[in-house]
């Protein structure tokens, strides 16, 4: 897409990055443990303070919140909010929420340009719950409405996977690559 991407495994390589994509898969607990072990948690927070544009995807978005119901791990605490597990009384509603669902843009953001109403690929059992609507940019419905895109300053996070979301996902990643970190 016209940018050079590399995989960060240590603090030195993360510090050099002009933009950071912070993906994540698995559980919040083990993710935080490995971030701490490598010191990447502090490096990421430092990059955040320096204004480096950061895109958190799925778990990478979830652990940017202030707390998680999933385990008792300390999270990165960039945005006030928590992560809760889907819980339905209807037995026919499957968990995880897996597949293609639509994004409704509720507040404009450079990263969400031309993405309103598009389908994105989701796979998750936990969803973000924000303390304040100020940080909410996109919403999706799976039995209940939940925030599927959120941001604060130079951090932006999505519950869905733009990297697996065909043309709409590539458009969003393109928006991120040209974003100056301001909104």
């Amino acid at each position, binding site marked *: 897409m016209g940018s050079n991407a590399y995989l960060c495994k240590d603090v030195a390589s993360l510090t050099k990055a002009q933009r950071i994509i912070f993906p994540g898969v698995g559980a919040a607990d083990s993710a935080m443990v490995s971030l701490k072990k490598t010191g990447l948690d502090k490096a990421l927070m430092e990059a955040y303070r320096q204004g480096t544009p950061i895109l958190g995807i799925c778990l990478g978005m979830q652990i940017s919140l202030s707390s998680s119901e999933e385990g008792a791990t300390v999270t990165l605490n960039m945005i006030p909010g928590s992560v809760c597990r889907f819980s339905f009384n209807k037995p026919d509603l499957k968990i995880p929420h897996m*597949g293609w669902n639509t994004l409704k843009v509720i507040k404009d953001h450079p990263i969400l340009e031309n993405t309103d109403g598009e389908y994105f690929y989701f796979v998750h059992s936990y969803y973000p719950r924000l303390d304040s609507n100020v940080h909410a940019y996109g919403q999706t419905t799976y039995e209940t409405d939940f925030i599927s895109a959120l941001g604060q300053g130079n951090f932006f996070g999505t519950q869905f996977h733009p990297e697996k979301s065909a043309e709409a996902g590539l458009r969003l990643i393109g928006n991120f690559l040209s974003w100056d970190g301001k909104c």
Partner: protein
Amino acid sequence: MLSKRVIACLDVRDGHLAKSVKFVDTKNIGDPVEKAKEYYLGGLDELVFYDITASSERRGIMLEVVEAVADQVFIPLSVGGGIRSVADATDLRLAGAEKINVNSAAIRRPDLIDECAMSIGNQNVVLSMDVLKSAPSSSLPSGYEIVIDGGRTRTGKDALAWAHEGEKRGAGELVVNSIDADGTKAGYEIFLTSMISNSVRIPVIASGGAGTPEHLSEVFSEGRADAALVASMLHYGEYTISEIKSHLNANGHQVRV
């Protein structure tokens, strides 16, 4: 609203595309990377590769196929066939596969499901089950038996019990493949699909028997499937993905268009 997924299944042998009918007489029908790209651009929701390569020394070819596909295709990619360890699963994940499918090896050693779920996350572990209809008995109360090794070996395991066990062990999704329906193009095994989908909380992918868009519509409504696998009806150009999706849309199913 969450849409129903249309998933194309590509059987790959020695790096080439094959379509098996009742798991025998596999015909070579093309290059998997080109086909994957064509379907991606045509609006496919997800791709599954089953590696049916016989010899283990040629398995590395599959990793190359996965890498080439992941480079150009930006939808979830799932790979199965011959995965016997977390190391096998990890190799495929690093090559670019989103999900890994376990089948025969999980029957032989069910802990494989737990180990994979622990290491790559439940949502990325798909338990694929090949199911054969049989007479209900005390050991097969559901009347459906799990078979392995591409349908050649009966296991004596009840399909419904195995679905429950797989869910409990950490599978994030189930593929329910009817050996009786596979390759017939006469429609999915509706009863089997709904029986399993109604009794687990994880998504169920119906497989085996798709011949027309009506068959998908049927398995989504009556079969309670969350996704449907298609193979020959696409591979032989009988229908396009958009034809299938327009039919589903017209019949009240939410699909990504």
